């Protein structure tokens, strides 16, 4: 007994010594060097260049993110077919974010330090982006984020190819205002995008003579909407602004119709329902309702016809394309253009080359704004038809310059 406990004590002591030694080393260098982090270097020595695709392939977000991954793969395939980037074929490395935000950070780090990717494409929820942001900044590596989001962010190592608020939400509000809607009911999932978006909507409403009659949130995944649709019915708003996401949307629409609410009397403006979601909800519930995006499957550009045809050829006739998928598709081409302009895969050189890059995208011409690394996009309001397709009823005419912090809007002064 005593011999063994001596041995254990000795081992504990050994462990403690090692710990203290290492701790001491850490302390020393920590004091002297705060910026020892080496910039991520892409491995471009071979005939290929790796890029990371980081999307949730399992868990609740897989519903949306799998299609983004498919779209990214299509872009990679097309670029490779036309000779690659700087003469190198792109080799995509796909990782599963698993709808779990720390996993996004972990996989981002893995793509950067193990796979040595030149850039990473992906992320969907704000939470996943916020988790990845420090990883990319710390490693000085690039992320292309393809989803509309709540704005108020401009990381030097992220390119935002989805809409920021002034390219989606504000045009949607402008449209409702133009239609003479005075009272709004806000309903959203309980997370960052809806809460932030609704704050902006309230500020906009106040400045534009509109009233917000109520603001309601549901935990993500919750499907019990009786109380909310009942509140909408009794408060009789001119329009509903819907920032729900995921499964909750299906439940909301089914229950919205079940109490007799209709597009004709109480239209709903949604910012998270694209063709894929519309298909899952069912046109019988959505017919006549409004959505705000920058792209629809029906958007009438020659590029879009090619894109839709290519996507269907690869994944099936019944597969729709949507705004985030298009933004993801575009992001790969934008990166290619930046790299070719820079003549290098080096992150800083690519960033330096970004400003003013244009691409003739399925959604129309897009231009990268180097100052905030967002892109100028055309806003489009769409109406859902009886067959579930979305047709454009209004667009902004020209691409809207990105303004993630809403600096050009007086009413938004108090927001951030």
């Amino acid at each position, binding site marked *: 007994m005593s011999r063994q406990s001596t041995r254990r004590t000795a081992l504990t002591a050994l462990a403690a010594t090692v710990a203290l030694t290492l701790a001491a080393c850490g302390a020393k260098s920590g004091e002297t060097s705060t910026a020892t982090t080496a910039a991520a270097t892409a491995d471009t020595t071979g005939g290929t260049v790796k890029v990371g695709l980081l999307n949730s392939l*399992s868990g609740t977000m*897989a519903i949306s993110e799998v299609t983004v991954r498919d779209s990214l793969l299509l872009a990679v395939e097309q670029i490779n077919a036309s000779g690659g980037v700087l003469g190198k074929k792109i080799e995509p490395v796909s990782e599963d974010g698993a709808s779990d935000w720390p996993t996004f950070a972990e996989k981002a780090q893995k793509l950067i330090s193990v796979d040595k990717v030149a850039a990473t494409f992906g992320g969907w929820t704000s939470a996943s982006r916020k988790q990845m942001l420090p990883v990319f900044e710390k490693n000085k590596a690039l992320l292309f984020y393809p989803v509309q989001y709540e704005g108020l962010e401009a990381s030097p190592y992220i390119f935002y190819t989805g809409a920021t608020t002034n390219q989606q939400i504000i045009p949607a509000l402008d449209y409702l205002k133009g239609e003479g809607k005075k009272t709004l009911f806000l309903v959203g999932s*309980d997370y960052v995008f809806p809460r932030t978006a609704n704050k902006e909507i309230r500020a906009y409403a106040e400045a534009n003579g509109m009233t917000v009659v109520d603001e309601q949130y549901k935990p993500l995944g919750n499907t019990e909407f*009786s109380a909310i649709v009942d509140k909408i019915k009794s408060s009789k708003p001119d329009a509903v602004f819907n920032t729900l996401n995921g499964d909750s949307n299906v439940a909301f629409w*089914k*229950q919205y119709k079940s109490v007799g609410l209709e597009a004709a009397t109480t239209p709903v403006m949604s910012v998270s329902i694209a063709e894929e*979601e519309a298909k899952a909800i*069912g046109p*019988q519930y959505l017919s006549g309702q409004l959505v705000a995006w920058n792209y629809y499957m029906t958007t009438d550009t020659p590029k879009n016809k090619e894109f839709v045809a290519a996507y269907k050829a690869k994944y099936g006739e019944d597969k729709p394309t949507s705004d985030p998928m298009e933004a993801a598709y575009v992001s790969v081409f934008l990166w290619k253009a930046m790299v070719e302009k820079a003549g290098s895969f080096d992150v800083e050189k690519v960033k330096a080359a970004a400003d003013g890059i244009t691409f003739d995208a399925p959604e129309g011409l897009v231009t990268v704004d180097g100052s905030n690394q967002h892109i100028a996009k055309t806003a489009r309001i769409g109406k859902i038809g009886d067959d579930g397709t979305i047709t454009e009823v209004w667009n902004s005419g020209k691409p809207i310059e990105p303004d993630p912090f809403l600096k050009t809007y007086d009413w938004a002064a108090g927001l951030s």
Partner: protein
Amino acid sequence: MAVLTQLFTGISFGAVLLLVALGLVLTFGQMNVINMAHGELIMAGAYTVYMLQKVVTSAGASLLVALPVAFVVSGLLGLAMEMLLLRRLYHRPLDTLLVTWGLSLVLQQAARDLFGAPNKQTAAPEWLTGAVEVGALTLPASRLFILAVAVVAVGGLSVALTATSLGRRIRAVVQNRNLAATSGIPTARVDRTTFFIGSGLAGVAGVALTLLGAIGPSMGTSYIVDAFLVVVAGGVGRIQGAVVMAFVIGMLNALLEYQVGASVAKVLVFVAVVLFIQWRPQGLFTLRTRSLA
């Protein structure tokens, strides 16, 4: 009038809770299996509607046909679980929780591979998408339908348990397995039947839920905690307990949601149930015995 609407909302919540929890009254309450894959049995029921609509194109007919078919589909799935895995775990109830958790992961991924990750759309018959106006009260037809399904399911289960020989056998096995076995009751077969019915009820719930929410791989996960709380708070194995608690929790949830919003309401409901269990650890209705512990 607002009060009446809120009450009906509460009843609507309660009916859904009751439907998703009813199967657990059998599998958890009577058999002590903590089936975390119950949500995936619900999912199987919902996908049954989706598949059936490829064959039976009339939305109304397909929904009505789906009720018995989903009962059988989910029931068979549950039966397979019972025969392959759970039967060896009856003396380890907590382990059934872990095994079925693993099963639920696998079943969700299987649904993703079979049907694709995106949600699926099912058509609801026109007569179930609108509302019935009673005075100033708007009663959604889908809610009334779900309420009816819940009432029929509870009634059917009660009759089955009390008035049939199968029900008597189930209760006998639950109350004293050894005695039942020595009295010539084939306990293994009774176990399988019980699990089949409990799982089948989850399938029925899945059909009903297609009228309310999404049909997708992870649809079951959002109901599982609520369902277990209903059964625990109601008194394990007691149908009347599940009925009362489902409506009490539903009502509480609805009324709180009108006051403080959905997120806080949900938290308050959870806390209330936890406090209730503190007060009555055996649930609302208990079968009192003199047995130790």
